Structure formats: structure tokens, C-alpha cells
């Protein structure tokens, strides 16, 4: 038993992912099947070996189908099995493996399949219209709120409190969209993008411009989790889930100071305590903080305590500086996948993509994306709802 009373060690033994695109012909079920099948195949098992399935997917309103978990069940391999959908908004993609982890850690199941899916393209005229129904119907919706409002308000507050400039924040979009060139599933890779391109892009909700934001996407991603005794038989390269954490702040988002995501810090503290991590920047070799907006990577790296508050972009003036600090051969590689900004943002699947990336990085299977520091420990994190949820997973080779 660990300090937190964990009964069994749990490993990731397989992962799968589809292309991420603005619009895919396949249904959510079909995409889920592709990702789940790839995860099973790479784990060297079949669905018959799977004891339970955990589903992650974001608002029903995107698909216009209620009971979306059940709708996706067949494509996710849940037929006649213990099956459950978990949902914490944008945090869902990293929460799905957390829920799958406790299925196995509890001793209840030996092998669990975790599948995350999102199909945002079905919603017209734009999935953001469905998103506005997360707002309070009395206080916020009558003002004509758009989802980007809240992020623009948060970005402005972050910039104000720490004196961070838009030119610095734009370097994050450049890094991730360039990194994504090496991701075979990427939707918005751009090898030539510059800070100037980001600053010249269309203003959405000031200070957020088009290239500061990740796109709506369709896609799916999946992993297979196994208990220690099973994982050791299945593979010579298990990647252990050593820490999990999650935390939610109040829905009254205007009642807290938006400059710092305290709830992400609490989620990280929980995961680090379980993993025995005392000095995150020294002990973590590769990180995938959630980056639906470029400033969020900074915000979340700070919440994950990988740097001090307000210092993520300290001394970062241009493209070269950001790669020197956080590129694949930088001081601490951050979002080597290309992140949501580059690979795309099918909400739940995007968080799971980050889990897959840490899995492949720690297995040294990331190909051209492989970070250069011989990584042993990685962290993936997601965030969402009304800027109030942090979900964190620490993994070790």
C-alpha cells in the first residue's frame, strides 16, 4: 500500500489514436472503434481480455445526442461489460485514465480500456453555440456571452498580474504548431509559423487572436491499463501510472482571481504526493500541460509547479528562446506532441492524446517527436468547465 492507500500498481500497456481534423466523415462510434482497436492491438490483447471500459466524452450538446456515453458504448468496446462515462468538461481527457486507474488499482479489474472521443463538427452553425449553454442562464447568457470571453478575461488578468506580453505568449503557439509537424494525426501543424503571424491573426476576443486558440476537432484516443501482474506478462515496457490528482473550484468564476489556477496546483499536489515527487522541475522530464490557448500552457505549467508563478515566459523574447527552454531538446520539454494548438482539440480526445504522448515518450517510441533527455517521468494535465477543473496524471517508465 502506498501513502495514499493505493492497493495495486497500474500500468499503461497500449495506446491508440485517430487523425484529428476539423470534420471527419466517421461517426463518434467509428472513431472510438479505430482508437480502441489500435490500443488493444498495440497491447497485444483482444476485447475478450478487457474486464471493464471507461468512456470520456464532453458535452452531449456537441452531438445533439443525450446519453452520449451509451451512444458511444458499442464503438468503445463496452458491450455487455461494466461501462461508465466520466465527464469533467475539458478536464475529461485526463480524468478518463484516472477513472480507469482506480478501476484497476482497487483490485476490482485487471485490464481496463479507456476511450475518449469528441465529434464537434456535427453542431451548426458552430460548436461554440452549444458551448454557451454552460453559462448561467440568468447571469451570463443574457449578456450574449461567447465562450472565448472567459479565456480572454483570464489571459488579460494573467498578463496584468505578471507583466507578461502578448509577444511572449505567442511563442507558445509557435512552438506547439511547429512541434505538431512531426505528429501524424495533427490538424494545424505549421513549420513556418512565426510570432508575427500570431500577432497579425484576426482578433477574436481581445487579447485572444485566432492563432492563440486551438481549433474545434473530431477525433478519438484510447489506452489500455493493466494491473502489475498482468502488465508484466503483456510487455517489457510498461509505463506506470504513479500519480493521479484532480480538483474542482467553484462555478462562480468571477469570484476568484483568474491569474493563477489554484485548483490545478491542488490536483498536481495530490498526484505528486502519490508519486513521491518533491521537486517537480527536477524530477519531471517531459510535460504535456493543457494548451487549448497559448497562455494556458504558461498558466498550467505554473499550476503544475514546473516553474514559479508568473515565470514560465521569463526571459522568453522570441521563437528561439521558447525552444531553448521548452523544445524537445530544451531544458524541460513541454508539449512535444504539438499540443492542442497543433494537433487539434477534440475535447476529451485531446486530453487523452496527451496521455498517449507521455506513454510514447517514456517508451522511447515517439519517433521524430522523441525528447532528447532520456525521459523517465512525465506529467499530463487537462483543464476545463468554467475555468475550474484540474486533472493530472504522473507516469513513469
Amino acid at each position, binding site marked *: 500500500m502506498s501513502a495514499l492507500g493505493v492497493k495495486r500498481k497500474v500500468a499503461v500497456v497500449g495506446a491508440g489514436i*485517430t487523425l484529428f481534423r476539423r470534420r471527419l466523415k466517421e461517426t463518434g462510434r467509428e472513431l472510438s472503434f479505430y482508437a480502441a482497436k489500435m490500443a488493444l492491438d498495440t497491447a497485444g490483447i483482444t476485447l475478450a481480455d478487457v474486464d471493464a471500459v471507461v468512456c470520456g466524452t464532453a458535452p452531449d450538446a456537441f452531438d445533439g445526442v443525450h446519453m452520449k456515453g451509451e451512444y458511444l458504448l458499442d464503438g468503445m468496446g463496452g458491450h455487455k461489460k461494466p461501462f461508465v462515462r466520466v465527464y469533467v468538461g475539458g478536464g475529461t481527457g485526463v480524468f478518463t485514465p484516472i477513472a480507469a486507474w482506480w478501476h484497476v488499482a482497487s483490485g476490482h479489474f485487471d485490464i481496463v480500456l479507456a476511450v475518449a472521443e469528441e465529434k464537434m463538427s456535427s453542431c451548426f452553425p458552430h460548436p461554440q453555440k452549444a458551448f454557451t449553454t454552460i453559462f448561467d442562464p440568468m447571469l451570463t447568457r443574457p449578456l450574449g456571452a461567447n465562450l472565448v470571453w472567459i479565456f480572454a478575461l483570464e489571459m488579460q488578468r494573467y498578463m496584468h498580474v505578471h507583466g507578461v506580453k502578448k509577444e511572449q505568449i505567442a511563442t507558445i503557439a509557435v512552438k506547439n504548431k511547429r512541434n505538431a509537424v512531426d505528429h501524424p494525426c495533427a490538424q494545424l501543424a505549421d513549420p513556418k509559423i512565426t510570432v508575427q503571424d500570431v500577432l497579425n491573426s484576426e482578433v477574436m476576443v481581445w487579447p485572444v487572436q485566432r492563432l492563440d486558440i486551438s481549433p474545434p476537432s473530431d477525433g478519438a484516443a484510447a489506452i489500455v491499463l493493466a494491473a502489475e501482474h498482468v502488465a508484466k506478462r503483456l510487455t517489457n515496457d510498461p509505463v506506470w501510472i504513479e500519480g493521479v490528482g484532480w480538483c474542482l473550484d467553484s462555478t462562480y468564476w*468571477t469570484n476568484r482571481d483568474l491569474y493563477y489556477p489554484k485548483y490545478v496546483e491542488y490536483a498536481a499536489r495530490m498526484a505528486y504526493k502519490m508519486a513521491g515527487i518533491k521537486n517537480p522541475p527536477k524530477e519531471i522530464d517531459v510535460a504535456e500541460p493543457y494548451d487549448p490557448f497559448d497562455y494556458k500552457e504558461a498558466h498550467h505549467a505554473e499550476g503544475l509547479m514546473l516553474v514559479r508563478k508568473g515565470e514560465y515566459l521569463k526571459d522568453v523574447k522570441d521563437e528561439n528562446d521558447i525552444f531553448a527552454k521548452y523544445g524537445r531538446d530544451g531544458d524541460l520539454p513541454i508539449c512535444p506532441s504539438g499540443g492542442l494548438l497543433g494537433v487539434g482539440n477534440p475535447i476529451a480526445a485531446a486530453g487523452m492524446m496527451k496521455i498517449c504522448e507521455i506513454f510514447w515518450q517514456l517508451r522511447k517510441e515517439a519517433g521524430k517527436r522523441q525528447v532528447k533527455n532520456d525521459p523517465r517521468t512525465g506529467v499530463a494535465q487537462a483543464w476545463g468547465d468554467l475555468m475550474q477543473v484540474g486533472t493530472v496524471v504522473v507516469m513513469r517508465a
Partner: protein
Amino acid sequence: MSARIKEYRGTYVSRKDLEEGRVPAVRDKPEARYAWAAGVAMGRFLAELKEGRIIGRRCRRCGRVLVPPRMFCEWCFRPTDEWVYVRDTGTVLTYSISHLGPAAERIEEPIPIAVIQLDGASPGVGMLHKLGEVKFEEIRIGMRVKAVWKPPEEREGAITDILYFRPLKEGEGQEGGE
């Protein structure tokens, strides 16, 4: 991506492919209508707006004045204790300027918005609203603002009974401060 995997699946289609029938599609427009009971706290809040007043609730244990009001304190997890009027002046905590409507459509006249800490609410307890009568380049965090109300006969007990917040003029609202 794992270097071991050779093929990633998924078939890109464009919006036009879908709209022009090159990809089979089924259309639907779910009709769902709602009438939300405003609740105990928000019901009073909206009724007070109709009278041109803004009301919050105080929790005596943590001492916070909560705006918008709620009947329980989520920190102390106990009932809040009393109604407290706050002023219709306040301070901008953060702001932005929206060029998008609710469906991410471009809008002709960008809308400045802000989280505003009203005078009398606890530090950091802000409320979202629009700004008006202000040049975008003059908006600052820390700027002092005041509500501009609809005429009494047009108010309906809604957050939009306040049209927007405008910058305070010289000599107005001295009692506040950041």
C-alpha cells in the same frame, strides 16, 4: 504517435462536402424550451435589479459579501446570514473586447466586457458585465466604473436591466477604490 504504428485512421471532409450532399448527412433541429425558476437568492437579486439596486448575501463565518448572492456559503458550507445592498459603482478586475457573438460569428460593433468588483462586495468577488461610453484603448484593470441602468419602466428583473458600466467621472464614487 508510436513509431511502430504505420497508419492512422480518419477521413477528412469539408463543411461544403456535408452541406452540398457529397457526404450523406441527416439533419435535425432539436427544440428544447426552458423556464428556469430563478431560485431563492437569484430571485431576490433579479427583483432588486428591477428596482435599480444590487443585492448580495453576507456569510458571517468567513465574512464575505457574495455577489451574485447565494443562500449558502460554498466555503463554510452553511447558510448565509443576511442580505446586503452593494453599490452600483465598482472596479474593473479584468476586461476584454469581443469581436464574436455567441455562435462565434463576427459582430460589427465589438463589445467591451469586464469582471467588476462592486463597492461593498468582498475583495476579488466580481461580476461579469459589459462596458460602455468608453474608448477601448482607455480601458484599464483598476478603472472605476458605474452602472448605467435602463429606465425604470423598461426594467424586467434581468441582468440586462443594467445596460453596461461606464467610467466614473471626476469626483464620482470616491468611497470605493481598488
